[in-house]
């Protein structure tokens, strides 16, 4: 039976009352019915338009990981690319993009994961991470954890150690226990709700 762990939300893990979290949450726009009816899409592009809030986001992750001897920050295409490299640069780690099939030009390893209907694949260059490297995996949002689990498998297949997965937003599914192959999950905020009159 796969080990389950509590998802760590920032407000309950060292950052209680930190006003930066509220600024980050307020900067995220909710777009109803995208990509389909019933889904309240968490749009982080508005966070990227708010320089202060975007800087807070990166600063929180950098403060958490800078003394953990992390040598690799892996980011999931495409929104993981918007957060990962800034963190990597600040903590002196390599940035490794995890991409959709057919995008990476060199020799790749790939891992499939489930979608609501069907499945997709995540790829990484074979020479990107070395055995025993300490890795964090970044994405903008975690829902079921399918993509992150595939990313963890890619890292472990190369003998690297995933120290933690980190996301800006965590959907209700990950509150409480999560299954990410036993790895810790750190999340800044819960999903934003709709404004009063939109």
């Amino acid at each position, binding site marked *: 039976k796969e080990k389950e762990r509590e998802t760590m939300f920032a407000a309950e893990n060292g950052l209680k009352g930190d006003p930066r979290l509220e600024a980050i949450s307020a900067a995220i726009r909710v777009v109803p019915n995208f990509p389909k009816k019933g889904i309240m899409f968490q749009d982080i592009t508005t966070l990227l338009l708010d320089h202060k809030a975007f800087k807070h986001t990166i600063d929180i992750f950098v403060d958490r990981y800078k003394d953990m001897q992390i040598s690799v920050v892996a980011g999931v295409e*495409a929104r993981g690319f918007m957060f990962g490299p800034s963190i990597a640069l600040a903590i002196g780690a390599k940035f490794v993009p995890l991409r959709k099939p057919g995008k990476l030009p060199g020799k790749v390893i790939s891992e499939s994961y489930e979608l609501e209907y069907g499945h997709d694949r995540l790829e990484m260059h074979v020479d990107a991470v070395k055995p025993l490297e300490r890795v964090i995996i970044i994405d903008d949002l975690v829902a079921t954890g399918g993509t992150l689990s595939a990313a963890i498998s890619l890292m472990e297949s190369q003998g690297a150690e995933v120290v933690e997965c980190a996301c800006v937003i965590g959907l209700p599914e990950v509150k409480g226990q999560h299954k990410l192959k036993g790895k810790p999950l750190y999340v800044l905020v819960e999903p934003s709700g709709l404004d009063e009159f939109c």
Partner: protein
Amino acid sequence: MQSIVSSYHLCLAHPPPPVLCQRLLCHRIPSIRLPSRRSTTSLGLFTCAAVSRESEMAAAAAAKEDGQDPRIPKIASSIRVIPDFPKPGIMFQDITTLLLDTEAFKDTIDIFVERYKCKGISVVAGVEARGFIFGPPIALAIGAKFVPMRKPKKLPGKVISEEYSLEYGTDKIEMHVGAVEPGERAIIIDDLIATGGTLAAAIRLLERVGVKIVECACVIELPELKGREKLGEAPLFILVTSDAA
């Protein structure tokens, strides 16, 4: 249908609408509310004065080395060339190896930041997907916002789009309505300029909404493909040039 209509009216009658009503009331996409421009300018005049002294010294140091920034050779050598990708005859410039070289990646960002700091640039636009890797660190360092320019149907809100030609057929790039305001000064970032089609489309998109393109910036140029000629008035800044094939 009837019950939905009457619930809707009930919700309207009792502002603020209770949570249950939100799904009924909010069919439209919330518009983007930008933070005030003054509040996002985090580089004060004092900092900018200090930075220009720094840049002058860096430029003087670079000038000693035949006019080339001494960081460039290391950046160039960190880029891996993969033959015959995505198809035979193409020498693909792989920047993922640059991202694995922490010094080269830092130097790349530093060169762009030194160039664009304190120039009143409030927008860094990055083209999907490799523009997303270089753009945000530059935006954060110069106090600008980052605007992703994406393939169709990826952005969730209201968009404007611009078509451009491919070898066979056309493609589109899109930007969120309201992400930028008229009069803003922008740079556009991508990892590489080849034919210039994507960058030209990005320029057109931003200019349509009244944004001034200060410069296009890429890590790599393939000069044989003459991408520069498609950029109109917009200058192009490059770190490394390479052969296309």
